[in-house]
């Protein structure tokens, strides 16, 4: 079942708030995790794990390192959930 970009963003914002304490309204597609949202590599792993639980999409470490912005994750989850 394909999710809309808005649905993925909403779910991702919840995860980021829970793990990194970043308020949902600050999580917008163009933001970078490291520089804009101050999220480090270990928190990215926690976000990937939580995203797997929420969206049913696995993001392996070697893919995770290329996901720099919120939009990168939205696109990755969107593509993977379509192909799944």
């Amino acid at each position, binding site marked *: 079942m394909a999710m809309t970009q808005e649905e993925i963003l909403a779910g991702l914002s919840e995860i980021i708030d829970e793990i990194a304490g970043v308020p949902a309204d600050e999580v917008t597609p163009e933001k970078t995790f490291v520089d804009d949202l101050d999220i480090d590599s*270990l928190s990215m*792993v926690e976000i990937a*794990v939580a995203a797997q639980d929420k969206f049913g999409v696995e993001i392996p*470490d070697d893919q995770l390192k290329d996901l720099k912005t919120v939009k990168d994750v939205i696109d990755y989850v969107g593509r993977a959930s379509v192909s799944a």
Partner: protein
Amino acid sequence: MRLHEGSVGARVLAFGGYQPARIVTNDELAATVETSDEWIRSRVGIASRRIAGPDETVADMAVAAAGKALAGSGLSPADIDLVIVATCTPEVMIPNTAAVVARRLGISAPGAYDLNAACAGFCYALAAASDAVRAGSARHVLVIGAEKLSQWVDWTDRSTCIIFADGAGAAVVGPAGQESDEPEPGIGPVVWGSDGDMADKICIKDRDSFIFQEGQAVFRWATTALHPVAKQACSEAGVEPADLAVFVPHQANLRIIEALARRLGAPQAKVANDIITAGNTSSASIPLALSRMIERGELASGDKALLIGFGAGVCYAAQVIKLP
């Protein structure tokens, strides 16, 4: 054929710990590699660690910790008939550390072996000791975790040199639950396992190499695969997480410790955070953390503690114990 009678259960009689004198702060490391106190505290939760002197050996630290545990147990060296040293950094491969440690403590002719399950080593050794007492192949066992990781660390590699440290912790294990004057069993069933598919995630490739760790992969594994193991150790012991007084995971990284504690579902339990001032001491971290918490009066006799060791292999082991 006749068999040993053994004992219904086993328990820990006393803990002991030892840390080398030299304190190495984050600022000291930041002077030689590109890092900072803030970075280290936020990524791994360590403020300072202890590093052994150049001539201080794994056996020296093991003897110091074990001597304290032995004194605390009220037993004499003659009462010990098995010595297990969990270590992944023995000074030499032959002879083993355990026999050397036993001789220096004045323990005459015990069974003695080293055990390598890396950072899970203490929980493996505690399970082996409990089984030996229950089977009757030993009556009183000295279980030691001792490491000198500093000699396997590349001090120019900022991803590992900030984490690993030196130290030792020990426990004396004896029979329980057999005769009416003995307390109830105090070491629960071990839940253990391994996954050799992840062998390359934490390793020292050969005798000329240093410790290598794929941090993100280890973090992902530790924060997703281990809380079910911890919970299973509780259920196999018939102990609810809500009844735990303390949770003592291997002191690998404060972020892993906190993630594991959140997923355990035991909000009332104290959580060992010895890593802040001890660093990651591999097989020594659990008994070292426990002995320091007991020394500070933070825990009481009879308290239930959940231990979980995990690390290279990967190997993991968890059990519930009652504190001496």
